């Protein structure tokens, strides 16, 4: 596959603050890449650099194998969709869509053709004569996407496009963006802090933290095999349960001990050989723990503290190994506080991190 967007050694400093530090990223042609991270991690800054709205301090940006580091945004073959929609308030939807084309001096017939095509794809035909103020949030964002669409660009950039919408519209438009990507097969770079959006939309996710990419992988790998403690804690809701302890061996098999409780590590696929005596952190996702299921080598007793029924699921909080942990079970299985339960773990889905380097073992 060809690379569509390529970022090489990108550094950006605002005065003494380094926002991006020698960042490298290759995005394949037609790929949907999500930049995920909490606010201030530099994800939007990276997107603005790719768009050409911010000038990098150092490094290069290639789009379609062309060095565009010094190019104007309009010459980069990109379209951008913003969180606040950024529709021109004084222009009708049609004029909003065609603004870029009119600036470029395209002829009327071609403009009309493109606007018609975009409005058909996004189903905004009936809204063309309206002003943005007369549109709902979802419609506005659709028009904003249309503005990128009419320009017939190679790369779509989305800067938290759904963050201003309510939950229902957000999930609707999410599906629509995914459908759009499947139909158009353009390269799309999508910035968000919402992990559900990232997991559902992305071909690959880049998780960023303080200007560095922590992990760049497909959603399932990120979810199942997080690279480090930060990624493990960031992805997944409710968050992964962490236990601080030490790797040991019991009966000649690797195990993990925390607060006097032993977890057998049978089935754990370690990247490196497990060294007994290493200080480590064991991560168990709430949904990978079974309650009152068949006995395994790891069966522990615990007491239910709190129950949080969420309809489809039921989240129970337990006291175990001297700390609080959560377990996700089916919505129809109810436990009263104080109930004794048996826990079992699937170690093939667990994560183990070095306590010092915070990297996956």
């Amino acid at each position, binding site marked *: 596959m060809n690379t569509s967007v390529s970022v090489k050694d990108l550094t950006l400093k605002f005065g003494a603050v380094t926002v991006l530090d020698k960042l490298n990223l290759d995005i394949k042609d037609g790929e949907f890449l999500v930049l995920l991270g909490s606010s201030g991690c530099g994800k939007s800054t990276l997107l603005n650099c790719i768009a050409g709205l911010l000038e990098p301090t150092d490094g290069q940006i290639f789009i379609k194998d062309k060095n565009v580091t010094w190019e104007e945004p309009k010459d980069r073959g990109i379209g951008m969709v913003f969180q606040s929609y950024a529709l021109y308030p004084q222009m009708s939807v049609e004029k909003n869509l065609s*603004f870029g084309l009119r*600036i470029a001096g395209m002829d009327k017939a071609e403009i009309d053709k493109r606007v018609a095509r975009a409005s058909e794809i996004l189903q905004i035909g009936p809204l063309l004569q309206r002003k943005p103020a007369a549109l709902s949030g979802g419609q506005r964002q659709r028009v904003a996407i249309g*503005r990128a669409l009419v320009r017939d660009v190679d790369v779509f950039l989305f800067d938290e496009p759904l963050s201003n919408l309510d939950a229902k519209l957000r999930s609707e438009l999410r599906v629509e963006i995914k459908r759009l990507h499947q139909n158009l097969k353009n390269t799309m770079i999508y910035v968000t802090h919402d992990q559900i959006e990232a997991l559902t939309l992305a071909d690959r996710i880049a998780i960023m933290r303080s200007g560095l990419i922590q992990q760049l992988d497909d959603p399932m790998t990120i979810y199942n095999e997080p690279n480090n403690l930060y990624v493990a804690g960031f992805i997944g809701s409710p968050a992964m349960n962490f236990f601080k302890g030490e790797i040991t061996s019991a009966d000649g098999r690797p195990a993990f001990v925390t607060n006097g409780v032993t977890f057998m590590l049978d089935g754990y696929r370690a990247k490196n050989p497990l060294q007994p005596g290493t200080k480590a952190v064991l991560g168990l996702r709430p949904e990978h723990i079974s309650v009152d299921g068949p006995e395994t080598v790891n069966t522990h007793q615990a007491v239910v503290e709190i129950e949080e029924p969420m309809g489809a699921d039921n989240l129970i909080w337990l006291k175990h190994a001297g700390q609080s942990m959560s377990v996700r079970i089916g919505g129809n299985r109810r436990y009263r506080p104080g109930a004794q339960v048996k826990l079992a773990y699937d170690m093939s889905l667990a994560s183990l991190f070095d306590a010092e380097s915070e990297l996956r073992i």
Partner: protein
Amino acid sequence: MADQATLNTVAAAADASRGSLSGPRGNRPRPLFSTRNIVLYGTLTLAAIYYLVPLYVMVVTSLKSMPEIRMGNIFSPPVEITFEPWVKAWAQACTGLNCDGLSRGFGNSIRITIPSVIISILIASINGYALANWRFKGMETFFTVLVIGAFIPYQVMIYPIVIVLREIGIYGTLSGLIVVHTIFGMPILTLLFRNYFASLPEELFKAARVDGAGFWNIYFRIMLPMSLPIFVVAMIIQITGIWNDFLFGVVFTRPEYYPMTVQLNNIVNSVQGVKEYNVNMAATILTGLVPLIVYFVSGKLFVRGIAAGAVKG
């Protein structure tokens, strides 16, 4: 449904039996003559009277004849209304060399104000837009100089400017005065526009850049149409400021180009003959009429513009 209705009645009956229906409910009533109301409306009324009484005296006096004024009741309404003083103030009052009233000054003021307002606002809005949205070398310095410029007393600069204008060869002409007004309006207007443009969403500007619009396209097609309120504010500030200006009008022009304010001064302060209070009052009102009308016509937009981030840092 009937069920629901029944339920409601039952609930109401239960409430009534508990006595909760008689308790406080809905809007809390506020007495008309509370201390709060008396202080509030009392202060506002006093302030209004304080500002309106001088205006009232002026209007009343301007409609009286001189014998009536000499009786000394400045607050009493005119017994016999006469417009003679107004006509005299406009067309016959003597100012120094000529005796054609304020009409000449009015013409001059119009010829000074309109170009000064248009040119200064045009330049200042472009300055403000560039400062708010575009990064360029030296913008910090430029901005600092402008801010300092807003705080330097005018008097300090008068003599140097006289010399500069003389060297250029436009000292004493209308265009010289227009240049002076444009320059002195620049710092405050630029600040005003910069703050307004900075308050507009930044993403709009970014979107326009991605769409391929350059400096002027963004200014004329995106920013201008969104900025009507701030343009009205700037217009009001400039029109009243330049119309009411006296100092620059005296210093930088010759008598034939004196603006209305300077002429008014010459009428009111003329030492020959009797003091014609009614003519003076009429002349003063005539001079103040233009800013007054501007306020009345655009007051609403002015408030909206101020509220729309014009005064935000």
